[in-house]
């Protein structure tokens, strides 16, 4: 708030910095604090504050800034002129803040702006070179920063936060270290800290006018709290390190963030939480978790850190355990933190032009005249406007009443854009209230054709009719059915497109409804998921696959839970003849294909997910389905099931079933009965679920049993063995620690791999080989799998020799079964070397992949009665084995 006030030129600089900062982080990860700084800017009384310009592009949209500083232009500036500017922007690929400021500089002819622009660019340049930037800042702001820092330090010290000093130091080291290193976000945090200082210097005298303007007192408080924390950290690091090189002293040099002891935790529980401490500790914990091997405190496990982090998150943000777990399962810790931070801040106010009554340009002009400052929402929408601030109530202007626009979240544009209704079609909106999407559909259809707006809740019907009337929509029938009954009412195959914006748990719109933080549990999610499946099936039944123009269903939720999103779609993929098609939306993250122990159809990558922290939209999910045939898929589905059970799963969607097949390897052959149990069709999660628990630990006797049967079921066995090999390979490449008690490494890998992917399973990796292999193993997942498959075929062809080798290996190591496993791995390794497949990087992983395969062969051989004891030993011991073969194989390589 105070930043821009400092005095004209420094103010400029202060403004420039965070702008550059958020640009540097660009679209993906502006760290939350940086975002906050940016947010506060517009209220900072920038000298040139006026009404916003109007251009078709809003390059800033995707950045997580709650309020963007935008190029200011005079109120009466002609739209044409602005277009020019926008053209400039458009031509410039960067299209970022610096440029916009420059454009503005030209327009206003202000010298200040020119300078500013230079500043901006400097900053930006520095931003790009994080390390250097850090140093520079230290240089030119040394004195005042130092001062401010000292002050801050004192103040904070007096506050007496009950923080023991080494913890503080540890965190300082963490914070300081981050700045210089290669991590973008951390660097920005560093800078953030400096910002905070400058700001805090003046904050006392400048607060009042701006808080008033800011309207977001709560957010501000938070912001200030954080600033204080950051400033303190920064100040301390300045004091300690003198600013430059010292700050780079890194955690990996030995400074370690200390987890609070159990007593401390207890003590904290009894006392009211000190949020500043908690916030700092969260940051530090995240930093540790990001580079666990180097930053952790000796003897502390990841679990302990995670537990502490969860406690802190619960304290700081007020989520319940379920929500925290869900976020942490879905994101890396750092990203989860970002998301929660983003959830604290409201999304920008956006509105959609009603193209039935006006055009965006005219509407913007009219609103600007009323003292609303707005901008186009971005290049992806022709009708959206984002409102920065307004002097009049934006929901009660004459234009609003006359139906020229609809106030609606940017996220709710997406499903309709994905639906892309065409004129003269028949479209159903199955859950229509309050009519935002329905009116958008009608507008896209130019009031032709038919729209059925259904809503089950009587109380919400009024809002639909109200909005339809207001926006002048005349092609809509509003009805009040349960979505599931609609098929009976309208008839199967009666419509061209259906939009199902399903009722959901709302875990994506926490910023709108904070009660979600505490009110949701796994049961709620499953309940929602169940309803959503019913509705989606109903929606698909409504659609006519033979429609000339349509045949589409768009499924969207404002939840980020996989159980409500991909799992639902995956379920209907099995139940109906539909396929997932690209949504046509330009951005958003791909849907999950694998999430923990879920495995979804690969086409689900066409679905789109949106997150508050990444896209500055509410968290939601959009998936577009094309109906292929009007037949109901039931029979085929059952066939599929049977196929799978028989072990003859088609090679058509290997990727999807590979995991399944791999997971089912052991039980599927011998006891087909197990499958329906372990993978019930009506499993609450409804996905192809890898039955990790149930089959994870067959006892040795059972294993032998299986082996015998496996030998009998050779054909099926080979395939599944291959899958298992692929899995094992992945596993081999990944950390081994969890695997020790699991007989079937492949299955364990399936679950764990997904759960921990990106979470640094490497940290727990057994050896260098495993670590080296991991990256490539991840990258080459499917390739590796196929490769392993192919190899197995070859291997099978050359089975005689192989068996000889395996037998030899088994014979070589009867003294101890571990060497036996090693020997097998060796055999595999040799073969690998002979095959000469894979880049050097991938070799360890590939070799590791081969190892279990060899094992499988050994097992098969055992089934045949050759080298029975050796083989069985190898199999039984494979618990211990996987850790070994990898290094062994690696040695072999050399």
């Amino acid at each position, binding site marked *: 708030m105070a930043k821009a006030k400092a005095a004209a030129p420094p103010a400029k600089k202060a403004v420039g910095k965070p702008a550059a900062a958020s640009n540097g982080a660009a679209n993906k990860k502006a760290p939350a604090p940086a975002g906050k700084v940016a947010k506060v800017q517009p209220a900072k009384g920038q000298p040139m504050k006026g009404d916003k310009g109007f251009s078709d592009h809003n390059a800033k949209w995707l950045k997580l800034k709650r309020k963007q500083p935008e190029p200011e232009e005079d109120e009466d500036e002609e739209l044409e002129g602005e277009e020019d500017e926008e053209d400039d922007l458009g031509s410039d690929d960067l299209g970022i803040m610096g440029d916009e400021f420059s454009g503005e500089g030209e327009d206003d002819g202000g010298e200040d702006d020119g300078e500013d622009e230079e500043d901006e660019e400097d900053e930006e340049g520095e931003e790009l070179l994080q390390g250097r930037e850090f140093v520079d800042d230290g240089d030119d702001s040394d004195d005042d920063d130092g001062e401010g820092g000292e002050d801050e330090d004192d103040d904070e010290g007096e506050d007496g936060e009950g923080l023991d000093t080494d913890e503080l130091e540890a965190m300082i080291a963490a914070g300081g270290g981050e700045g210089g290193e290669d991590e973008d976000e951390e660097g920005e945090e560093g800078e953030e800290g400096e910002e905070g200082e400058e700001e805090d210097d003046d904050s006392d005298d400048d607060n009042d006018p701006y808080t008033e303007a800011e309207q977001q007192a709560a957010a501000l408080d938070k912001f200030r709290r954080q600033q204080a924390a950051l400033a303190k950290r920064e100040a301390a690091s300045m004091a300690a390190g003198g600013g430059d090189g010292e700050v780079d002293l890194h955690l990996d040099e030995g400074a370690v963030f200390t987890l609070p002891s159990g007593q401390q935790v207890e003590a904290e529980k009894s006392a009211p939480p000190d949020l500043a401490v908690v916030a700092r500790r969260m940051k530090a914990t995240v930093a540790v978790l990001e580079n666990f091997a180097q930053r952790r405190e000796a003897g502390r496990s990841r679990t302990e850190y995670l537990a502490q982090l969860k406690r802190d998150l619960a304290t700081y943000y007020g989520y319940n355990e379920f929500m925290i777990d869900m976020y942490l399962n879905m994101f890396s810790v750092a990203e989860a933190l970002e998301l929660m931070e983003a959830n604290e801040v409201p999304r920008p106010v956006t509105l959609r032009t009603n193209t039935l009554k006006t055009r965006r340009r005219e509407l913007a002009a009219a609103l600007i005249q009323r003292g609303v400052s707005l901008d186009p929402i971005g290049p992806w929408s022709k009708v959206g406007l984002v409102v920065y601030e307004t002097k009049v109530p934006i929901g009660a202007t004459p234009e609003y*009443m006359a139906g020229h626009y609809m106030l609606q979240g940017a996220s709710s544009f997406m499903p309709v854009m994905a639906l892309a209704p065409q004129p003269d079609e028949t479209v159903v909106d199955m859950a229509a209230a309050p009519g935002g999407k329905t009116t958008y559909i009608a507008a896209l259809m130019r009031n032709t054709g*038919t729209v059925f707006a259904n809503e089950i809740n009587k109380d919400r019907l009024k809002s639909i*009719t109200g909005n339809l009337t207001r926006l002048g929509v*005349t092609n809509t*029938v*509003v009805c009040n059915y349960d979505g599931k009954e609609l098929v009976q*009412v*309208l008839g199967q195959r009666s419509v061209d497109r259906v939009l199902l914006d399903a009722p959901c748990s709302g875990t994506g719109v926490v910023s709108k409804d904070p009660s979600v933080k505490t009110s949701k549990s796994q049961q709620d999610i499953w309940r929602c998921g169940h309803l959503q499946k019913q509705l989606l099936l109903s929606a698909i039944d409504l659609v006519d696959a033979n429609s000339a123009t349509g045949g589409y269903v768009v499924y969207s939720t404002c939840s980020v839970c996989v159980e409500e999103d991909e799992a639902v779609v995956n379920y209907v993929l099995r139940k109906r003849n539909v396929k997932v098609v690209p949504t046509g939306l330009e951005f958003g993250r791909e849907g999950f294909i694998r999430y923990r122990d879920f495995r979804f159809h690969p086409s689900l990558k066409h679905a789109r997910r949106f997150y508050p922290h990444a896209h500055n939209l509410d968290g939601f999910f959009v998936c577009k389905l094309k109906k292929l045939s009007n037949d109901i898929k039931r029979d085929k589905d059952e066939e599929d099931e049977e196929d799978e059970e028989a072990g003859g799963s088609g090679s058509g969607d290997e990727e999807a079933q590979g995991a399944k097949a791999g997971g089912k390897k052991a039980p599927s052959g011998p006891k087909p009965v197990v499958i329906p149990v372990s993978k019930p069709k009506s499993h609450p999660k409804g996905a192809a679920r890898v039955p990790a628990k149930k089959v994870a630990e067959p006892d040795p006797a059972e294993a032998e049993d299986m082996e015998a049967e496996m030998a009998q079921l050779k054909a099926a066995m080979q395939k599944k063995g291959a899958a298992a090999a692929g899995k094992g390979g992945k596993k081999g490449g990944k950390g081994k620690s969890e695997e020790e008690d699991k007989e079937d490494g492949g299955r364990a890998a399936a679950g764990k791999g997904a759960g921990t992917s990106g979470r640094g399973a490497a940290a727990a990796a057994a050896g260098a080989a495993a670590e080296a292999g991991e990256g490539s193993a991840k990258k080459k997942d499917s390739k590796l799998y196929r490769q392993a498959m192919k190899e197995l075929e070859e291997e099978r062809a050359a089975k005689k020799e192989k068996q000889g080798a395996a037998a030899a290996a088994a014979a070589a190591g009867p003294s101890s079964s571990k060497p036996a496993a090693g020997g097998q791995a060796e055999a595999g390794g040799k073969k690998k070397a002979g095959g000469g497949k894979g880049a050097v990087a991938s070799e360890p992983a590939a070799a590791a992949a081969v190892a279990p395969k060899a094992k499988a062969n050994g097992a098969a051989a055992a089934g045949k009665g050759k080298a029975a004891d050796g083989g069985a030993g190898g199999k039984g011991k494979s618990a211990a084995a996987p850790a070994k073969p990898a290094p062994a194989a690696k040695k072999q390589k050399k």
Partner: protein
Amino acid sequence: MRPLTEEETKAVFEKLYKFIGKNIKNLIDRPNDPHCFRLQKNKVFYVKEKLMKKATNVARDKLVALGTCIGKLTHTGKFRLTIGALDLISQYAKYKIWVKPSAEMQFLYGNNVLKSGLARITENTPAYTGVVIYNMADIPLGFGVTAKSTNECRNVDPNAVVTFHQADCGEFLRAEDEL
């Protein structure tokens, strides 16, 4: 949902006639895109025939709205235009008045139009006839009934009512339940 009876049709047309005069013809005779009037739970809808046919699938108690709701029939059989009819009658309106920006919000809050807020008025508007009210940007805001003819308007007290309020866009916010 059912067609209007003779009496109901008469009531509706009489009311519409006040606002759009002979232009009613344009509402009914649309060879390319035939429209009809339908009654559903006291509300009169003006709706495309195609849409109406599709809506016949929907049970009466489940059908909430279709096409454009132009008004309500009261218990006594009178017809009252609602704000939904604004789009329709503003297209064909015979008499219009424009209000000054200062009086715009006043009208949108449900007040009558005073002479002081009157910016323009169609020539030769008689007293006690239906008019559509626009703001200076030609956005229709609502409709009402003139209290004075154009000539009388020229020389009346600034506080005199020029147009009685009947319906305005503000109702979308104030009275969503009654739409």
